[in-house]
């Protein structure tokens, strides 16, 4: 017969009426008290049964025996048995000797199945970690991650040396495809974001410079900041979000589905076959995207200068040419090559380190984007300090 529902509570209708369960604490004069269970114990009644049982046993002092008399139990299901075994184990661990007695046939079988005849195992409670432990673990984890990335970088260099010795072994045909995905496909978003960066910066700068009658210097502000800092950085961030995440997810999925192992067993070094094409492609396209970003960033500034500051196109361009040096543009391109290396290195390393199925792929993809962003800012800061001290 199909189960039916009655109001909020679901009830199972059975073909034959079952004997209701009953619990009784029996305390014979000359013997230890016994918890006598009767009837059919089913999981549908587990909640009230649990409450009643807890009440019956909570007052039993340590040292006093309390056995579970199962002789009158007609049947018991697995869920209920698990609860009974849990209760008996708790009693034993509290110092109350307790066993299942009188079980026969199927009931005895299920007692054994749920280890009701064995001594209880003390459950290990996890101690909360102290703040120091957590800081220590995080530090060790961070240093471990840095070590892994450096090790991966070493492997990458070795693969590159091998590739230079035997160029035939490279996966050259993959490079144009990756360049297209990483570079050409990113052009619209690079243009949009860098145009708006130049545009917004010009507006913000104009408000201040207008007070001093120095409107024309908006071109200097936009030109220098875009070519030296914002162009390379914003473009790298875009490529990190698009391609870094994609590399980590692709390689992570290949790792968990054993495709990387399969490649190795077929004689393809994953470093040469998968990592180097990605690294080379990004290192070629990111500088090109950066130059494009410089151009559109300055165009954003030009639009504001012409529309809002009454500058002519000629005067804005003249001022830009005076402010932006060849080295300024070149330094941004140099940065972008290092950014490209960081993006490909970290994303591929994270992809290769993936384990644990779909969840692992997601975790590593997130981790790769966060690590790359952190690395980009760090590298940018390092470049700024070096350029400053060397007056570059």
């Amino acid at each position: 017969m199909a189960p039916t529902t009655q109001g909020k509570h679901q009830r199972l209708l059975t073909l034959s009426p079952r004997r209701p369960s009953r619990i009784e604490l029996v305390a014979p004069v000359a013997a230890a008290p016994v918890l006598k269970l009767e009837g059919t114990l089913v999981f549908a009644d587990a909640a009230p049964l649990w409450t009643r049982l807890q009440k019956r046993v909570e007052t039993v002092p340590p040292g006093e025996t309390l056995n579970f008399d199962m002789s009158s139990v007609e049947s018991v299901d697995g869920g209920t048995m698990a609860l009974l075994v849990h209760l008996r184990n708790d009693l034993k661990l509290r110092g109350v000797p307790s066993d299942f007695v009188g079980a026969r046939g199927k009931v005895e079988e299920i007692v054994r199945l749920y280890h009701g005849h064995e001594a209880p195992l003390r459950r290990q409670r996890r101690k909360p970690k102290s703040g120091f432990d957590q800081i220590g673990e995080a530090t060790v984890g961070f240093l471990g991650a840095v070590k892994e990335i450096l090790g991966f970088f070493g492997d990458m260099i070795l693969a590159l040396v091998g590739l230079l010795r035997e160029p035939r072994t490279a996966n050259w045909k993959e490079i144009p495809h990756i360049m297209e995905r990483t570079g050409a496909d990113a052009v619209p978003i690079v243009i949009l974001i860098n145009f708006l960066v130049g545009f917004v910066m010009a507006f913000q700068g104009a408000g201040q410079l207008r007070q001093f009658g120095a409107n024309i210097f908006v071109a200097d502000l936009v030109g220098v900041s875009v070519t030296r800092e914002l162009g390379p950085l914003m473009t790298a961030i875009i490529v990190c979000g698009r391609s870094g995440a994609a590399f980590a997810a692709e390689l992570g999925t290949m790792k968990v589905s054993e495709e990387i192992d399969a490649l190795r067993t077929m004689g393809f070094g994953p470093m040469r076959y998968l990592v180097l094409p990605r690294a080379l492609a990004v290192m070629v396209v990111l500088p090109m995207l950066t130059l494009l970003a410089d151009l559109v960033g300055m165009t954003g500034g030009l639009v504001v200068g012409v529309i809002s500051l009454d500058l002519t196109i000629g005067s804005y361009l003249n001022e830009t040419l005076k402010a932006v040096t060849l080295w300024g543009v070149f330094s941004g391109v140099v940065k972008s090559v290092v950014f490209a290396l960081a993006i490909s290195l970290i994303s591929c390393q994270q992809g290769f380190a993936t384990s644990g199925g779909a969840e692992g792929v997601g975790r590593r993809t997130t981790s790769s984007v966060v690590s790359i962003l952190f690395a980009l800012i760090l590298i940018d800061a390092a470049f700024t300090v070096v350029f400053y001290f060397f007056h570059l």
Partner: protein
Amino acid sequence: MNEPLIEVTDLTIGYADAVLQQDASFTVYRGDIFAILGGSGCGKSTLLRHLVGLERPFAGHVNVVGVGAPNLDVGRPPYGVMFQSGALFGSMTVGENVALSLEEWTDLPHDAVEAVVWGKLRLVGLEGASGKFPAELSGGMKKRAAIARALALEPELIFLDEPSAGLDPVSAVELDDLILTMNKGLGLTVVVVTHELESIFRIANRCIMLDKESKSIIATGDPRTLRDTSDDPRVHGFFNRLAKEA
């Protein structure tokens, strides 16, 4: 017959600090269908990964006769491997998956590669699936495609990790037939990790059984003989499906 092909000596394997098997020694002979058996977590697949050279052992060594210790970093691999999931490259068609090794390791012209690919796919009954992507294949078809890929370079030895896992009984029997065909028809030596009893008795002529508790090999020999004569309760339990984890 009885010419050694893989000699494993005192091999200790595991992951990180966890040892899964200690001092394992056994020999796979040319022409064997050699099954690696045992319950879950005993290290069957890990042992396979060590045999093919994907992992390095804590101690001991594997010697593939004529090749030495398996090393995947030196040129054309001398054997084929089929992974549990098939591990077909999802961005390539089935034909491209099979052709990959041929293009890399042979000087065959394109039309010859196509012909070999077709022949391999025909062998595994997938000649019509060459242009399909792995996502379009059923579980059994993926495994057969993976076997075709593993056979691409005509290896003498092939490793199969849980070939029947996750397959319906009909596909599993078809795959067993294919393994027998490869062994009898092509003279291929097959090392197979499995715990499918029907498959073991049907295809394997020799086996080892790994034990999780003792971290050792507890039986070696013909699986049918072991089933009928072994006094070891673990072996008896495995073959009679009494062991808890089998």
